[in-house]
């Protein structure tokens, strides 16, 4: 059944995440939600609205502000086959929990020779919102994908939010689902039925042919904006949304690279050892002969996020910088 044939409803990204959690909790009692303010407060960003009333406090649980503790507790529960959804109010705070994510969750299956797997979801917003300053504005993807053993998806649209979160819950490994505070109000059509998008399948959000903008998460919207600007100048861009950073849809990346011969990676994180660094390595290793230009990256400026509005705007990867990078890849016009 194609997306156009299925029944769908317009809803926000926030509601789509909620729908996925409700869908999965209805079908499997092993799934529970734990995190700060997820129950009585309906979630700091209201993603879990109504879930306490629906599922009760056995399955929708407010935790103390103890990220290392409740993430570890969820990993422990997952070691016995429960399927926790561990919400971080934002992924910035999950840095406190990284020991349990990386030393416990990521390595468990391997260390135990497959005796124990950890079917857990870590979810919450990643990246910057508006003027939240250094400690509250960081893209955390690299921390998670650097360690083998963790999977990572980054939905950009409401439909992807529902489908990818459902898939994450059903997956038998630890899956981080990184959302965006600035995405929660984005609206879109979301399939009504049990909707699951397999991990590892990228989505060509725009088909152009002149240059490939490859990206993930919130930056998909920046890439589409940039593609719109380029179109007004007669340049048609592919926008490939990875959706899933690990597993990575290598085939889709190589296909767009082969079609346009020019690739620009856009990400919200810092450049050093970022997701884009991995994509650059991959493309030059596997598609060197297809390339007509170096693979470029547009990232957050390589500094902690400043508070001041004007400096923050300079630090973030915006559409204009993506446009400039695409032109550079096309050897057309001014420098990035």
């Amino acid at each position, binding site marked *: 059944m194609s997306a156009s044939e299925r029944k769908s409803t317009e809803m926000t990204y926030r509601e789509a995440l909620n729908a996925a959690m409700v869908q999965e909790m209805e079908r499997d009692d092993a799934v529970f939600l734990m995190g700060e303010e997820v129950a009585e*407060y309906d979630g700091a960003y209201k993603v879990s609205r109504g879930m306490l009333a629906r599922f009760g406090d056995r399955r929708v649980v407010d935790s*103390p502000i103890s990220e290392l503790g409740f993430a570890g507790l969820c990993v422990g529960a997952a070691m016995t086959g429960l399927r926790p959804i561990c919400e971080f109010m934002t992924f910035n*705070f999950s840095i406190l929990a990284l020991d349990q994510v990386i030393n416990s969750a990521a390595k468990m299956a391997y260390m135990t020779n497959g005796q124990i797997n950890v079917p857990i979801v870590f979810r919450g917003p990643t990246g910057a919102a508006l003027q939240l300053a250094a400690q509250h504005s960081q893209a955390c993807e690299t921390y998670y994908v650097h360690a083998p053993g963790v999977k990572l998806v980054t939905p950009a649209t409401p439909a992807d939010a529902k489908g990818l979160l459902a898939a994450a819950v059903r997956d038998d490994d630890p899956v981080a689902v990184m959302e965006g505070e600035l995405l929660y109000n984005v609206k879109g059509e979301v399939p009504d039925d049990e909707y699951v998008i397999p991990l590892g399948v990228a989505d060509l959000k725009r088909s152009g042919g002149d240059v490939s903008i490859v990206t993930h998460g919130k930056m998909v919207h920046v890439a589409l904006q940039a593609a719109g600007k380029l179109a007004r100048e007669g340049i048609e861009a592919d926008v490939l949304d990875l959706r899933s950073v690990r597993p990575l849809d290598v085939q889709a990346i190589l296909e767009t690279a082969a079609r346009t011969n020019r690739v620009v990676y856009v990400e919200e994180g810092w450049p050093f050892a970022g997701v884009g660094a991995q994509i650059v390595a991959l493309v030059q290793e596997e598609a060197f002969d297809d390339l007509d230009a170096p693979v470029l990256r547009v990232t957050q*400026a390589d500094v902690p996020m400043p508070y001041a509005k004007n400096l923050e705007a300079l630090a973030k990867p915006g559409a204009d910088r993506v446009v400039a990078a695409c032109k550079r890849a096309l050897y057309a016009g001014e420098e990035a």
Partner: protein
Amino acid sequence: MAEVRGMSRDVALSLLGDMLLYRRFEEEVETAYKIGKIGGFCHVHIGQEGIAAGAIKPLRGRDLVISAYREHTQALAKGMAPRAVMAELFGRVDGCCGGRGGSMHLFDVDKGFMGGHGIVGGQIPLGAGLAWAIKYRGGDQICLCFLGDAAVNQGAFLEALNMSAVWRLPVIYVVENNGYGMGTAFSRVSVTEMEERSGACGVPAHTVNGQDVQATYEFFAGLAEDVRDGAGPQFVNAVTYRFRGHSMSDPVSGTYRAKEEVDRQVVEQDPIAILRDRLFEAGLMGQDDLEELDAQVRAVVQDALDFAEESPRPDAGTLYDHAYAEVNEHGRLFLDGRGS
């Protein structure tokens, strides 16, 4: 000598003036936030001014204070200029961190104010570290480390208190116990009382009514000297109440606390009103004096607002400044192709 409850009129009046300044400052911060002059997460201290004045004013200039993100008034109490704090909230170049830090990250090393930290509990081991450094250098300062009630549930709290006790560090951990961490009452995330939380590490616990600024001041004046004399780390449960929402984007009341509860606290437990009434009753101040004091502090706040408004935004060319303290002439520090 004119006294109120054993405190001289001068000290009492200056505490009242301090708290009034904090209140007016925060009220203007709220207004500025609503019209977009201030952005991001912004947590005001309204209702909790008694602790800022009562705990910090007895300190010496070179003592150190470290706190979380609800720290505007604590910064003022430690001697930071209202202008520098307001300009920071506006994200301007004359702010105490040049506009880089914002509401949650106020710092002034010269004044001994060591932040302004946004990760719940992050400042607790840092406070231990500041105290460690004092002891290491053989100094006679102490460190005051503020935290919220919810922060005691972070593992870092236990680790920091234990180390402080083991090494007898000159630090006072002050819990601003306003009863809630965001929308979660302390009793929902703890089966023990606040005073029981430090004992397991051997750090003595004390409770003080933070709405009674006189009691808070007298208590901290004594405790600070004890710690300076080598009494070792202390834990103070300063009981207070947050009159506003958790941050500017949160409601004042809701499912987690009833409007009636907030209203009653605001009427009965306002630290400013409590001291004002005592001064009135003791005949040490009249309505005219109060109005004059209020006019004075309002002028200070207005001056800070004007200053912040006129201060320029940070120059775009400074984006990469201070990411590192030391530039390196051999290798490239910034890998984004923009910073040099």
